[in-house]
């Protein structure tokens, strides 16, 4: 496969079939952004307390967050960024290769398709399928890393989480929420909402 043959992404949803999702071209984070140290004391703990009810439990599969015991913020943040990258089809994570080529690549569909690719993909690809794929990829990636998954009511979940749908969050907002997710992932073990792995 050559550069000229790189695939566009996106098409009709098929149950349980992984179909690559389209994303508008957007810049990759700079290596300095990826590597900067974040003081967890500056990141507020998201509100995770709620009274479980049937309605919330029915939607845990859509609205969830992660936690792993004995995990510091920096580790959780690196894990969450990596898995967010996987779910987006990016290559953020810090490869063991010291050459940071990967971080500079950005979103591949933006390279190939540009406006044409995005418009075509958006016309034929359902945002619901894109959200579904993101959820599966996140749970797979974080699951392999040993994180447990916990459900939340939608209202609490939206305060520090996002789904790609047909519009990705602004880069600054993405970073803010990923940090909040890392704060939750590295905090006290949740007492409610645990989901099966």
């Amino acid at each position, binding site marked *: *496969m*050559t*550069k000229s*043959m*790189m*695939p*566009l*992404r*996106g*098409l009709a949803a*098929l*149950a*349980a*079939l*992984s*179909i*690559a*999702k389209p*994303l508008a*071209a957007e*810049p*990759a984070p*700079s290596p300095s952004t990826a590597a900067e140290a974040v003081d967890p004391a500056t990141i507020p703990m998201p509100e995770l307390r709620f009274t479980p009810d049937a309605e919330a439990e029915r939607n845990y*599969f*859509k609205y969830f967050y992660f936690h792993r015991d004995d995990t510091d913020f920096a*580790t959780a943040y*690196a*894990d969450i960024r990596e898995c967010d*990258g*996987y779910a987006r*089809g*990016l*290559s953020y*994570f810090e490869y*063991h290769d010291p*050459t940071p*080529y*990967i971080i*500079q*690549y*950005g979103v*591949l*569909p*933006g*390279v*190939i398709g540009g406006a044409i690719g995005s418009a075509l993909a958006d016309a034929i690809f359902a945002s619901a399928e894109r959200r*579904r*794929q993101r*959820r*599966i*990829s996140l*749970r*797979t*990636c974080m*699951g*392999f*890393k*040993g994180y447990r998954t916990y459900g939340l009511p939608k209202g609490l979940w939206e305060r520090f989480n996002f789904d790609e749908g047909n519009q990705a969050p602004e880069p600054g907002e993405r970073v803010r929420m990923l940090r909040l997710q890392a704060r939750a992932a590295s905090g006290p073990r949740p007492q409610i909402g645990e989901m*099966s*792995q």
Partner: protein
Amino acid sequence: MNFARIGLVLLAFVAGAAPAATRNQIGEREAFTIEPNKAYIFFRSERRLPYQLLREVTPAQRAAHESERNAAFVRARRSYERNLALWQERQRGCAGSQAGQCSAPRPTPVTEATFTYPPPEMDNFVAISDRPRLTAEENGWSGYLVAVDPGTYILYGQLMAVPNAASFGTCVCMGAVKFEARGGGVTYVGEVGMAPEEIIGRPDLENFRVGPLMTVTPFAPSMPMPPQLAGRPVVPAQLHAADRMPNFFGVLISRLAPVPGVLAYERDRVIDLAGQGETASGN
């Protein structure tokens, strides 16, 4: 209900409707000569599915790619500067008007942070279609033979990337195997199958289970040898663990099941059991 298997059926269906197979994929009745400058990879698959192999990027290739990228960046930067100058000139003539070209947005800056360029890996993928097959066994297994450039290859995933269209399937981006394929002979990888039912990942949100997608069983002398390979130089693949890789096609992600003596995991950390030392990955 095994949604992973349903997904495979759908993937096979779509693969069957895909464009013609890789031209270097050799069919059952196809005469072929082992060329010294080509490597030949053979494996048996439990399912008729498309796969992607990824040839590892060599240092020389990466250096050449970096030069190309830098040159492309310079060109893009110059183009942006020309467009910006043109836009600014037009704006000066608009005197506050928003009509026509006056409403055109400011060109997006081209910087190192915003410039996108495909990684060198994109030149190194080898697509294996579900057809043609070298062998079609009565038990439903298929044998695939593909001629490639010599190098080290990673089993990247069970997926299909249709040129200028979409990508389907799952990559084993979070843990795979790799092997060297040398020119002038056939490298028999072994068998590629689905992970056992009791551990296979379930990509079904309401009944989700994290787990591997596929298994690889290294070559063993008891494995069938296709008649087309009789008398040809065939060597067993020396499998090693392959570390985590980017999701180049934006498909779902998974990993191979552990392979005794080859591949193991500590959470997401890929462990190479075959003598090259631990791969540095995971936290």
